[in-house]
């Protein structure tokens, strides 16, 4: 294999590859990126055996072929090359080295045979649809903060993407929860997505996929089977196994009869929560909300370190209520609100609280209170 490729295209492909490969590996070739050249394109493939990313880039191919080299090393090299450089990659099968040269710099990298590179088995996808990048971005960006990191509940270590019934008909829905808070985000159902099986997209896949979604109007091809999910742009294809487990019935968790309504400016609220939480040194900082006629008092009382209180003018018309929350959870859900006021719906101080943006029910958050 011998090719020349622009640094920018190479950098993008290798950056994507190196973030997929696991830093610590017992199988050496999994640290490598598979580079294959044919016609006038070169493809870069990297995998951690759960996720596979394939990136195509245009290149001048002098000699077709392929090899594998350390994704991290290649990325570091390309990153340090000057902007606009033309990079030549040439494989010497006799020495088993890949020579990388640009300008006056030359690098010689150890390779492993491409035949040993594990390629993810292709599978049949029951559902194929396209969605705009901005639609997927909203679905995942607004839900991913609630993904659990608890390995004992592995089925919560991802975003549950499925088709659901909402008030206005069927929707494409993403749900994530860690048992303390839950995010439920809806989008219009794309054509041909009606029969999509519900899948749990793992946390790492959500992070990798996010890199495909920067251009608002880009069409993303989504393919879903019971075991795999694939997101593709014209250049990049990301294939991932889904979490093999059953996502719990989250509908029971979403309170239906919370009637005590608080309306507050989300960013003022978040700033106030952040300020009062400063005095607490505990890992789970508890903030107390005291609600009374159009008045909200936020307070923290940490016996060892101090106390803080702040009052906010809000819209609240129900009876007095005192309820505590983990400050971090309040901040995270409040930061999801960007257009209108945050609307909180409470029941009692022991019951889950619901939060949404204005009257928009396409993004709903639930947070469990804590004893204060």
């Amino acid at each position, binding site marked *: 294999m011998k090719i020349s490729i622009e640094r920018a295209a190479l950098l993008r492909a290798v950056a994507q590859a190196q973030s997929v490969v696991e830093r610590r590996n017992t199988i050496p070739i999994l640290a490598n990126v598979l580079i294959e050249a044919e016609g006038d394109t070169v493809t870069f493939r990297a995998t951690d055996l759960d996720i596979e990313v394939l990136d195509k880039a245009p290149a001048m191919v002098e000699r077709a072929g392929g090899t594998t080299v350390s994704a991290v090393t290649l990325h570091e090299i390309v990153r340090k090359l000057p902007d606009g450089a033309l990079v030549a990659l040439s494989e010497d099968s006799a020495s088993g080295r890949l020579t990388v040269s640009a300008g006056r710099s030359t690098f010689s990298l150890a390779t492993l045979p491409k035949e040993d590179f594990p390629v993810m088995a292709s599978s049949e996808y029951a559902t194929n649809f396209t969605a705009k990048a901005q639609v997927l971005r909203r679905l995942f960006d607004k839900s991913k903060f609630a993904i659990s990191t608890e*390995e*004992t509940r592995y089925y919560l270590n991802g975003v549950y993407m499925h088709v659901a019934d909402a008030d206005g008909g069927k929707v494409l829905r993403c749900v994530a*929860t860690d*048992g*303390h808070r839950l995010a439920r985000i809806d989008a219009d159902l794309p054509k041909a997505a009606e029969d999509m099986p519900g899948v749990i997209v793992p946390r790492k896949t959500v992070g990798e996929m996010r890199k495909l979604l920067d251009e608002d109007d880009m069409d993303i091809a989504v393919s879903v089977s019971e075991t795999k999910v694939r997101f593709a742009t014209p250049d990049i294809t990301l294939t991932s196994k889904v979490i093999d487990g059953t996502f719990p019935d989250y509908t029971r968790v979403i309170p239906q009869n919370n009637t005590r309504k608080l309306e507050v400016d989300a960013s003022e609220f978040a700033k106030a929560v952040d300020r009062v939480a400063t005095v607490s040194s505990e890992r*789970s900082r508890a903030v107390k909300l005291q609600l009374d006629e159009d008045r909200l008092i936020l307070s923290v009382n940490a016996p060892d370190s101090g106390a803080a209180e702040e009052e906010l003018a809000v819209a609240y018309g129900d009876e007095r209520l005192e309820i505590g929350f*983990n400050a971090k959870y309040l901040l995270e859900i409040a930061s999801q609100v960007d257009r209108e006021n945050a609307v909180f719906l409470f029941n009692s101080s022991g019951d*889950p609280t619901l939060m949404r943006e204005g009257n928009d029910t396409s993004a709903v958050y639930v947070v469990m*209170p804590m004893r*204060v």
Partner: protein
Amino acid sequence: MPALCRDCLTRFDSGPRCPSCRRPRVVSHPELWDLTIAHMDCDAFYASVEKRDNPDLADKPLIIGGGRRGVVSTACYVARIRGVRSAMPMFKALQLCPDAVVVRPRMQVYAEVSRQIRTMMEEMTPAIEPLSLDEAFLDLSGTARLHGAPPAAMLARLVRRMRDELGLTGSIGLSHNKFLAKIASDLDKPHGFSVIGRAETQAFLRPKPIRLIWGVGEASQAALERAGIRTFDDLLRWDRKDLGARFGSMGDRLWHLARGEDRRRVTRNAPIKSISNETTFSEDTGDPEILDGHLWRMCEKVADRAKARGLAGRVVTLKLKKADFTLLTRRHALSDPTQIADRLYRTARALFDQVPGAGPYRLLGAGLSDLVPEAMADRAGDLLDPNAATREKAERATDAIRARFGEGAILKGRALR
């Protein structure tokens, strides 16, 4: 040279026998009146309590431990002559000493006796650091005027009281720091009184093997041996910097210990770091029902102890020992610390379910660590487990019933498995 009769507490100026009671149990040392840090270690504590309470056992080799499958927790001195040691597997102990009487430990009795000893020590000094039920460090600095007697005399009086009032013997190590006091108490067991003074510290330590250091186990010993360190003499030859570079924080401590220096204070109530409980089964089992019953009981005991101390833990640990003695431990950090047996059990159970293979196992244990005060625990509910709050209430109610009507007044069905 100052001397003290350990029987009648007469202080005199050296001699093989007490001038007042003519008995030979005399301790003499040039620094006897000046040393203040002591370590008191009861002699074969559990076994001595059992022999005291059941005189039939007095002359028999006695082993305290759990069943045929457990380990020896204490062996009396008769059994020790036959080679039985603490922590030895019971089957091995019984090979060495087939006529031994094995008695199951009665922890509550030992705890009560321990409290009685503690009360006696409290009369001597507030600076007591218990290491377990049967041993403690005492700092008697500055108490000579109060008691009208130097620490050595007070300590001799303590063991005499233990013998007279409780029917138990203990050994005293007296020195100028904890490290040496602990070594000293072991020199003249049982019913001993050993003194390591400042003047002879270096000479005493030099030829001794470094395994004398409390906390240097087999692994550290091997690491030290690789560096050519077997005795304190070897250790003395090392430069402080080199020790630090090779052994990290332990290196600096070793450098000081080599010189008989130990600046740790005798601290009352060193905070507990973890609460755990484990059980060795009478026979290996892979039966999920039986294991589940054991797991529940272990979790309940841990939770009971946490509640009794007003503590809760963030990290749940599951410990399993396979039939071939390989040890498996699994940990899980909770986002909300707990002292509730139900939560502890459910977390440990999830860890258990993720262990590949079905056993059989010989031991199971559960523990809580990363402890916090109970006020900071069990504050957050679980969205996905709305019944957790109800179960917690039921557990608190159960606790109240047990507190009033006794341990067995109410049990979970799974406790009977």
